[in-house]
């Protein structure tokens, strides 16, 4: 194999996993969008890829896009696409953070301060 034909598999893998898709079918997942699996794990008839199943296992407890990406060693963009698939099939519940957090909300600041002080 000549050097010019060699392609880093680490570059290729994310695109294979998403079959070339770069945008999720649903939602705009931020790095800290949280996702959690819902319902029983789907069987083989669901036709999901191994990475979808990995996400569902990982998200039995709520996880952010960034955490899922880190644990599965895939780029965040790939995780967004896969999460979109799972959300579309109602296998995960997810939420965008920005509209949730009101930066004028005193209650949020107090909760964060209390949490940090108890570390």
């Amino acid at each position: 194999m000549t050097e010019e034909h060699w392609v880093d598999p680490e570059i290729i893998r994310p695109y294979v996993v998403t079959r070339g898709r770069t945008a999720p079918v649903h939602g705009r997942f931020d790095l800290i969008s949280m996702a959690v699996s819902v319902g029983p794990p789907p069987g083989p008839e669901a036709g999901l890829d191994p990475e979808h199943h990995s996400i569902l296992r990982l998200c039995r407890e709520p996880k952010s896009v960034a955490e899922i990406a880190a644990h599965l060693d895939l780029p965040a963009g790939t995780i967004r696409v896969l999460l979109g698939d799972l959300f579309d099939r109602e296998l995960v519940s997810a939420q965008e953070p920005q509209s949730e957090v009101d930066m004028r909300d005193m209650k949020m600041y107090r909760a964060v301060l209390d949490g940090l002080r108890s570390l």
Partner: protein
Amino acid sequence: MVFDRSDRPRLPTAIKILIAGGFGAGKTTLVGAVSETRPLRTEEVLTDRGVGVDDLSSVEAKRTTTVAMDFGRITLGDEYVLYLFGTPGQERFWFVWDELAEGSLGAVILADTRRLADCFPSVDYFERRGTPFVVAVNCFDGAPTFEVDEVRLALQLDTSVPIILCDARRRHSSREVLITLVKHSARLRAEPVG
């Protein structure tokens, strides 16, 4: 946009704080000192269209570049999860900073007194963006010691910007840095807290 379904368990609300500063200032050290797990790493793969024109011109074959970010998680009760993101060092990744800064509670700029000038791009960025920030001077062994006033003068910081001395390796010290930021952000955006 919230696309949670009403009959499903409620997800915790995620909050993020950015940890900025020059290369080697101790960003990942601070993240690791206060997080509940070792720092994790996430990557964004970018096409060359998203990157500044100067960086890839000499590498004709390369069409993508990867930006790595170290981050940590602190679970705050049932309702909130705090994520600390180390910002990518290179300034050509400003647009990644934009995504990180959007909706963030604020930023910690870690200063290394051996290379104070490394902080300038971060200070400029958060001032321009209106993101609340504090400067934490990481006191390395053997690094020149500065008074807070000297750092303020050198970085031309307004007196309203908190500057604190810290040791990013220590959990307690890093926690105090975060508490200072949260209080500062609350002062600017909500009402004062004790």
